[in-house]
């Protein structure tokens, strides 16, 4: 099985939007379906793969997640779960959105799931005015329109200001 060990040690280079290069082991990169498809279709992993939508700070986070998940065996699910919940703890909204976009672009399902859950947890149980403030959503409804939208599904707004 010498060839597979060789493959495991194979590395590729990813380049962030701000020009920083990351040397990544192939088995770590395979956590991303996007990279997996690229590697499947084109074997010249010597080339640098540009990721023009992802900055270095975000890419470092993403690769940290990928490494942890690629190295852990499936029997350590509990450990991975606690890693996941620690991973996003105390992350500011800007970083979280960059991360969710990167996970979506690179097609890393597990990371996309936990980042989406984290954003959802911020929304739930909050009055919409507060949600607007947190996410800087501009309200373009007139008061009458807004009242009409609420009225359409009154059952969902009961108890909410």
């Amino acid at each position, binding site marked *: 099985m010498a060839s597979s060990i060789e493959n495991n040690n194979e590395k590729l280079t990813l380049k962030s939007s701000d020009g920083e290069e990351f040397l990544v082991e192939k088995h770590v990169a395979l956590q991303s379906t996007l990279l997996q498809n690229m590697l499947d279709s084109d074997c010249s992993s010597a080339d640098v793969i540009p990721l023009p939508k992802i900055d270095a700070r975000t890419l470092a986070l993403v690769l940290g997640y990928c490494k942890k998940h690629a190295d852990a065996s499936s029997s350590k699910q509990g450990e991975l779960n606690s890693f996941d919940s620690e991973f996003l703890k105390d992350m500011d909204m800007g970083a979280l*959105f960059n991360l969710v976009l990167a996970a979506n672009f690179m097609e890393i399902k597990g990371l996309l799931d936990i980042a989406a*859950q984290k954003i*959802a947890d911020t929304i739930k149980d909050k009055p*919409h005015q507060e*949600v*607007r403030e947190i*996410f800087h959503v501009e309200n373009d409804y007139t008061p009458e329109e*807004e009242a009409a939208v609420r009225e359409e599904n009154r059952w969902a*707004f009961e108890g909410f200001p």
Partner: protein
Amino acid sequence: MSGSTSDMISNLPCNVLEKILMCLSLHAAVRTSVLSKKWRHIWTTLPQLVFDNTFYKECTRATRNNLMMTIYQVLLQHHGPILKFTVSLTALESCPQIDQLIHFVSKNGIQELTLHFHKGGPYKLSSSLCSCRGITCLDLVSCVFKPPPGFKGFSRLLCLKLDKVVIAGDTLSSLISCCPLLERLTIESGSTSFGYLEIVALNLRFAQFVGLFSSVCFKSTPHLAKLSIHLLSSFGNLVSEKRVTSKPNMLTGTFPVIELLELDYYHLKAMAAGGIPNRHPNTLTHLKILKLHLICLGKVDEISMACPGVTVVLDPIPEPLEVQDWSDISLNQLREVEIHRVSGTRPELDFIKVILAKSRILERLVIKLESKEVYEEWRILKELIRFKRLSPDAEITLKSRDEVLRLGQSF
């Protein structure tokens, strides 16, 4: 990427927004419609709609009195595929209007359908269910299933769960055989009894039966790896003893790759009387875990004590097992055995003797005792010490009766 003061959430790609909204309750997802004009209709294309008790908890009293109307309102505003649809509201009475819901989702690509009813009697399933060709998971509680003539099954069904579903035995057998991809099957009979069930399911991996089944024949299940059969209801009461005794419970068939077998007393009796091992001596070679519940062989009184309020009528003590009767059996893959509620009768001890004598790589044998008497423990222990063990690594653990018997824990 943009700075932290711009509206990043509204500009997320559609699929990411959808993912976020699907992490929310339906109430919270609908409330996002008021954030801005862009958000108004995002929730209306979500591919899953779940009306369950969590949904109910968020409803005010006015809405609770008008659950059907709220469901209608949601469906009227929804557009696009509905892949997952759940109605499981303890407070909702089954009613013919449910037909319209099924009709609606049947035209919108439904894949996972869950319908649980707890009030108003069994719901007679709409025939439009049978036109849901793409269905992969069907989970029904308290429904009447009577497919129209010429029903060709669900060609993509992977998972079928029926609890208290009124369905004829032969209809159920043919439904199962008409679902070629079926991997998981769970059937709880409720108070009605099934007669003869014949299981032809080429792709089946997991099967669980709880309740009354006179006879189950696994005619062709080449991939079945986990099988669990209980005559107990989930509340731990014996379902109805009269019918059990009127027809002996028989489990037949071949299990070429079975890894986990979970049985209770009645099926053990059937085994001893010529059920699985004797008929098919070589079919348990992949068995890794054997779980036996309620093996009070010949101890009828103790079953009644364990399940108060139930009159138990059983045949007299079954034939004792002899090791030589099992001479053609090999349990070469058996690693772990757990036997619950052992009271130390001769047939029980003989059975344990067989397990120890025939299992080459047995690692763990856990025996949970029925009695709390030290003397009884002592007596059983004395017997156990004398049994020959084929596996040098076999470790026997004797446990006192301190744990509640929980069904299906290994799944």
